[in-house]
Each structure stands twice: as structure tokens, then as C-alpha cells.
């Protein structure tokens, strides 16, 4: 994708590099207040402490803003587009313009989560092209790795730094989607309960049960075990339907309970699993469900096949 900006493009996606609370508020509060003055729907989805900072500064206007703790709603980066951004924008389709502050990357994001975060930021551009929406993404320029800020310049057409907005000449979201399409982490030396099961249509039930059995042994609660069964079932069913009819399930426990499904298929739609489900739509519904319930979904896809890892916190 080129770095040229189409003046007629109604979607806008600036990154805001901030250093400290004062710059955070200076970069976000006017954005919210301008929106409210223009009668535009405004949502703020940022980590809890930042949310409180903004709530206090906004005072009475905070009541007119949809406030969302991104560490909960956006724990899995793969559900931020359908569950947070589009959920809000789509519920205000009549508005002239919708404003959202979305902070999906914070210092506590792990190295395992980060590739999915960067891909999410890149995919926002594809998901919102043509929509009258502005998504402002704050980046903590003190705490975050310099590489994260370099990626932000690739995934955002404009960057606001030191109160100055500039066109990002580096803008190239496609390169970020590709750069983080990498082999997924293998079980570490401390991994427990590592099992492998080959499945096809005749033992889909077993795949789900094997994963549930390990989840119970790892101490997950009833609701989490239920979610994990749903996730493994959806991913394995996708392999049966779209991934060559068969696949391999691996389950292990390290810092999380990990369910990995690999098959011979290839994911060609980068937004698969991130479009809100239409009442009649079919494509990506299973993957969307998994995005909503897993704590992290990572994918690696290419000519040799597709591997997907769903992680559930212990």
C-alpha cells in the first residue's frame, strides 16, 4: 500500500505518541470534546488506569462517552475490530462521523501477544476503509519498545508526536501483516500435559474431549472449559470443512493453556474472524467465535498450511 493519502477517504487512523499523563490528556481530551460538541458518538477503549485518568479529566462529559477497559474487551487483539471498534461504529451507522480512541498495545503486552497486536493495528485500515470513522491510537513512547513505535508508523497513515501531526511516509500495513505471519511459539521446557491428536470428521468429538480433559487437569473452571471446547470444536470443524478434511490438534500447558490446530488449508482473507457476524453470513463465523472467547488467538498461514493457536489463561 502506498503512503499517499486519499483526501476523500473518510476513515482516519492516527497514532498518538505520548510521554506521560499530561501529553496523554493533551492528545486525547480535545479529540473527545470536539466530537461531543459536533454531536458525534465517541468511545474510549484504553487500559483501565488510562481510562480513569480520562474519566476524571472529562468530568461531566464522561457520561456522554462510551468508556471501555481495553485490557478486558481487547484482551485478545483479534476481537477488538468486531467486539469493540465495529461494535461501536456499526451501532451508530446514522452518525455523520464516529470517534474512537483505541489503545490496544500497552507495556504489559507479552511478546507472545505482540504479533497479534501489530497485525490488528494493520487490519484496522482494511476493516474501516470508506467508513466515516476516526480511530486515534495512543502509544506510550516511554514504556514501549522502539520497534513497537516503528510498527505504529507502518500501520498508521498519520502519526502525532510532540503535538504535531505528520503523514507517515513509512505507512505500509500490508508489510506488518506479513512480517508477523511467523511460525508460532512451541511449548517451552516447562510445558505440561503436551498431547497430539490427528483428527478428521470421524473423531471431531474426541478432539474436543481431549482438550477439555487437559483443561480440567490444569484447573480451569467450568465456564473456561466450556469455552475451550467450543473453540477447539470450531477450529477443528474449520479444518474438516476448509483445511483439507483433516488436521492435527496439539494441547499443552505452559503460561497458559494452549490449543493448536494445524491443517493443509490457507487463510486468504486477512479479516477472517474479525467481521461481525451478519444474521445470514457464513464466512469466518467459527473463527469469530474463537476470537471472542480466547484470551489470545495467533495464526500462521502460508502455502504449506495454516496453524492457529488459541490461548486460555490459567
Amino acid at each position, binding site marked *: 500500500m502506498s503512503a499517499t493519502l486519499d483526501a476523500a477517504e473518510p476513515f482516519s487512523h492516527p497514532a498518538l505518541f505520548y510521554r506521560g499523563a499530561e501529553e496523554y490528556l493533551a492528545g486525547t481530551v480535545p479529540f473527545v470534546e470536539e466530537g461531543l460538541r459536533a454531536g458525534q458518538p465517541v468511545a474510549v477503549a484504553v487500559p483501565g488506569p488510562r481510562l480513569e485518568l480520562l474519566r476524571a479529566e472529562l468530568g461531566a462529559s464522561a457520561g456522554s462517552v462510551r468508556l471501555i477497559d481495553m485490557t478486558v474487551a481487547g484482551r485478545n487483539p483479534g476481537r477488538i475490530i468486531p467486539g469493540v471498534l465495529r461494535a461501536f461504529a456499526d451501532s451508530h451507522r446514522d452518525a455523520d462521523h464516529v470517534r474512537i480512541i483505541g489503545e490496544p498495545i500497552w507495556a504489559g503486552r507479552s*511478546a507472545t501477544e505482540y504479533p497479534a497486536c501489530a497485525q490488528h493495528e494493520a487490519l484496522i485500515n482494511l476493516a474501516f476503509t470508506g467508513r466515516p470513522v476516526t480511530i486515534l491510537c495512543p502509544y506510550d513512547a516511554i514504556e514501549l519498545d522502539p520497534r513497537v513505535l516503528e510498527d505504529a508508523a507502518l500501520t498508521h497513515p498519520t502519526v502525532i508526536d510532540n503535538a504535531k501531526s505528520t503523514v507517515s511516509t513509512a505507512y505500509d500495513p500490508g508489510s506488518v501483516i506479513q512480517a508477523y505471519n511467523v511460525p508460532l511459539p512451541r511449548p517451552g521446557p516447562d510445558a505440561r500435559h503436551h498431547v497430539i491428536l490427528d483428527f478428521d470428521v470421524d473423531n471431531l468429538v474426541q478432539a474436543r474431549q481431549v482438550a477439555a480433559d487437559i483443561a480440567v487437569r490444569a484447573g480451569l473452571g467450568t465456564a473456561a472449559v466450556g469455552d475451550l471446547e467450543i473453540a477447539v470444536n470450531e477450529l477443528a470443524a474449520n479444518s474438516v*470443512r476448509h483445511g483439507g478434511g483433516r488436521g492435527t490438534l496439539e494441547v*499443552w500447558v505452559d503460561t497458559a493453556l494452549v490449543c493448536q490446530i494445524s491443517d493443509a488449508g490457507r487463510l486468504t482473507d486477512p479479516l477472517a474472524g474479525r467481521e461481525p457476524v451478519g444474521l445470514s453470513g457464513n464466512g469466518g463465523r467459527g473463527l469469530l467465535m474463537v476470537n471472542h472467547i480466547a484470551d489470545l488467538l495467533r495464526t500462521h498461514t502460508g502455502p504449506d498450511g495454516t496453524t492457529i493457536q488459541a490461548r486460555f489463561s490459567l
Partner: protein
Amino acid sequence: MSSSDRRAADGPAHGAAATPPVRIPRHVHRPVLICSPTPGRVGLRMEGEISVVTRDTLESQLTSLVRRGTDVHLDLSKVVFSDSGGVAVLVNAARRLPAGKNVHLEHPPASMRRIMDVLYSRVPNIKVQS
């Protein structure tokens, strides 16, 4: 990702697992879905599992019921599991009913409730009864 864990930033850098994984033998068990009519009202009593294997059965049964244009009652108390494709079939059936008519899901399994809540919470004419 903070500046401090830059070293760990790349994916598959871990060593081999300490204990080798256990390869589990395949256990063949194709799920079935048995649908029987419910005497005295328009609906079905279902037993088994709603999955990629049984979705077509569900769809054809529902299609003929929905044509009758009245409320549809589904007794799901003997259904142990449903996937999102199965729930989508129910949602599509509900959409084809005339205005004011509902699909009633009676005692659905936990998986069906969860999928309804997450993906289809705004379908007005599906009524869930536990």
C-alpha cells in the same frame, strides 16, 4: 510489549519440551442428531449433537417446519453440544418466520447458550428457555 522484554520478542525461540508429547490414538465416534416430532405443537425434540456432521439434518428438518409460519418449539434437553454453524441454522430459520412468530429454544446446552450470547444476542425472535 515493554522495552525490557525485547529479547523474548521472537516466537519460536524456546528449546525442545522437556517431556515428549503423548500421541493419542484416534477414537472414531461420529455424532448423530435424532429429530422427532413433538405431538400437539409445531416443533422438534432433538437428541445428540449439532455439528458440522449433523447440520444438514437440522437444516432440512427446520426448513419444513418454518414453512408452516407459526411458532417453532425445539426441545433441546437431550442435545449435548452445538457449534456456531448449528446456531446459525437456527437463526436463519427464525428470520424466515413471519413477523411476530418465534423460535423457542428449550433447555439448550451450555455451548448453544454461549454462542447465542456472543454472536447472536440481538436476534429478536429467538426465545431461550432454560
